[in-house]
């Protein structure tokens, strides 16, 4: 029997597989079409203090190897999230996996306040599924928030420190792929007191309708995700792992077990399935099964042994 549990900076996951924020709604939408027991965590869609309308339509475009999206973080705000969404998730899904809540905001104060309220709520029965916070500082699709905080290591450090003060939940910081040296941002998070890192968010991208001579997305630009970004994501995880002991939740183009195992070998502690779920909701399950059989085949007693286990 392979021990599939992993510890993601204080978040105990029964399996190393999570879902990626924004690609799995608030956790319950796929109920019926998948086996939740194989998920170590679900990550909720990005949430902020107040409700947010998101971008105009169209919000996505299929491209070879994936998807360019500019959903723009539509959401109902923390109040509705805590009162309705989380309790609904917990009631819909029998023995619901722990929830990582992805947060964003227009200011450091907003991040902090959202974190504070999540932390408070996580102590209540109705919202006890809330077990970690993921700070999104890397969404390319919203001017007012997201990546503005993640681009400058100093600002990033301030943000992480501020959020850290407000929460004792495991604090994950989600980093952007489009940087020359991930190490700088990793250190900013470490120094700020983060418990874990997640990467990668989507890669800034654009698709133009040449007949209409207009960007396809109403937001003009968007973020690239899916199969095609995987080799870039593996490199970033590898680079990050070499400079930090913080556990990494890796994502970017995981479609099959092989993709996830590459992440683990590169240094990830856990792996999230994103865009692939849209095409095949059972991806996370299949990935889990494949990792277990890989462990058996290679003589690993536990999944956590794979982390960083590249041979010299």
């Amino acid at each position, binding site marked *: 029997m392979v021990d599939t549990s992993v510890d993601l900076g204080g978040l105990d996951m029964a399996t190393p597989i999570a879902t990626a924020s924004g690609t799995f709604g608030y956790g319950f939408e796929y109920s019926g079409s998948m086996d939740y027991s194989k998920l170590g965590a679900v990550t909720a869609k990005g949430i902020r203090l107040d409700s947010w309308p998101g971008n105009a339509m169209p919000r996505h475009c299929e491209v070879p190897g994936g*998807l360019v*999206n500019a959903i723009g973080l539509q959401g109902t705000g923390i109040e509705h999230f805590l009162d309705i969404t989380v309790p609904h998730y917990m009631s819909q899904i029998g023995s619901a996996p722990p929830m990582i809540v992805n947060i964003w905001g227009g200011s450091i104060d907003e991040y902090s306040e959202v974190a504070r309220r999540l932390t408070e709520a996580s102590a209540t029965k109705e919202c006890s599924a809330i077990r970690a916070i993921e700070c999104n500082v890397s969404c390319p699709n919203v001017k007012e928030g997201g990546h503005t905080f993640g681009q400058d290591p100093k600002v990033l450090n301030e943000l992480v420190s501020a959020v850290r003060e407000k929460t004792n939940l495991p604090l994950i910081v989600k980093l952007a792929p489009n940087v020359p040296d991930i190490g700088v941002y990793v250190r900013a998070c470490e120094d700020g007191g983060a418990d874990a890192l997640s990467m990668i968010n989507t890669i800034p991208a654009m698709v133009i309708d040449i007949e209409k001579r207009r960007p396809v997305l109403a937001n003009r630009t968007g973020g690239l995700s899916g199969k*095609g970004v995987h080799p870039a994501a593996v490199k970033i995880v590898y680079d990050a792992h070499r400079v930090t002991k913080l556990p990494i939740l890796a994502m970017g183009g995981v479609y099959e077990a092989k993709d996830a195992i590459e992440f683990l070998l590169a240094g990830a502690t856990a792996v999230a399935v994103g865009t692939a779920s849209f095409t095949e909701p059972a991806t996370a399950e299949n990935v889990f099964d494949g990792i277990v059989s890989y462990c058996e085949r290679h003589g690993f007693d536990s999944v956590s042994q794979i982390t960083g286990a590249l041979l010299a």
Partner: protein
Amino acid sequence: MILRCETAKVVEHREIGSGYRYIVFDTPKMAGDMIPGQFVHVKIPSLEASALRRPFSVFDAEEGRVHVLYKTVGRGTAALNSVRTGDSVSVMGPLGHGFPSQCNGVALLVGGGYGVAPLHFLAKRLKAAGHGSIEVFIGGRTKDDLLAVDRFRAMGVGVHLATNDGSEGVKGLVTDPLDDELARIRASDGKFELFACGPDPMLKAVAMRATGTSSRGWISMDRHMICGVGACYACIQKTVRGNSRCCVEGPVFRAEDLVWE
């Protein structure tokens, strides 16, 4: 209603006029739960692993099978063309919020192109529920775009046709015969409800004829989708409640809830 992802065998697949095809999936688990206006989300076998699913309205659902009528418009539907009887296809469903199962007064069904698909299923169910007066208004650019006409006639539904080029039915918009019918109904103080599916301008025109009246209008919106289950927020339609997801809050909306840009 439980969301399912079924590996379905294709039991029938054929061309039905230029550019349109008819495909039948063997989906014993979900077919019985289908409500008119709902849709299925189909993984097209020969596309690469990262290709998104494609949504299609249910044209008919009976005996464990889901029927779809589709138009070939791009690479996904083109790839679907080459699926053969006996092939396996992953189908998700039932998805979305469908039409109501009853109707107060005359049921006026207005469709364009493949938009007749959910209306066919709706007419069948209304008939089965004993609803007598159903009139369907079908529009298209040319007579090739007027689909399922015989199926409606066979059900005993009143059929009204319109084409832009006058190649069949009234020359003009589908709202022309509709407006004649509305005038008739109003003249006799009759009741009616509107059910529409088709291109946006047609839907808007139909919705306008329902909003502000005592009659209800049910509009099925066609929005570009990713997940089909409410998880991604790609398929937005502005409504009085804000940005609504067509795949779960729709595709069928009440006419008065829609906000047109």
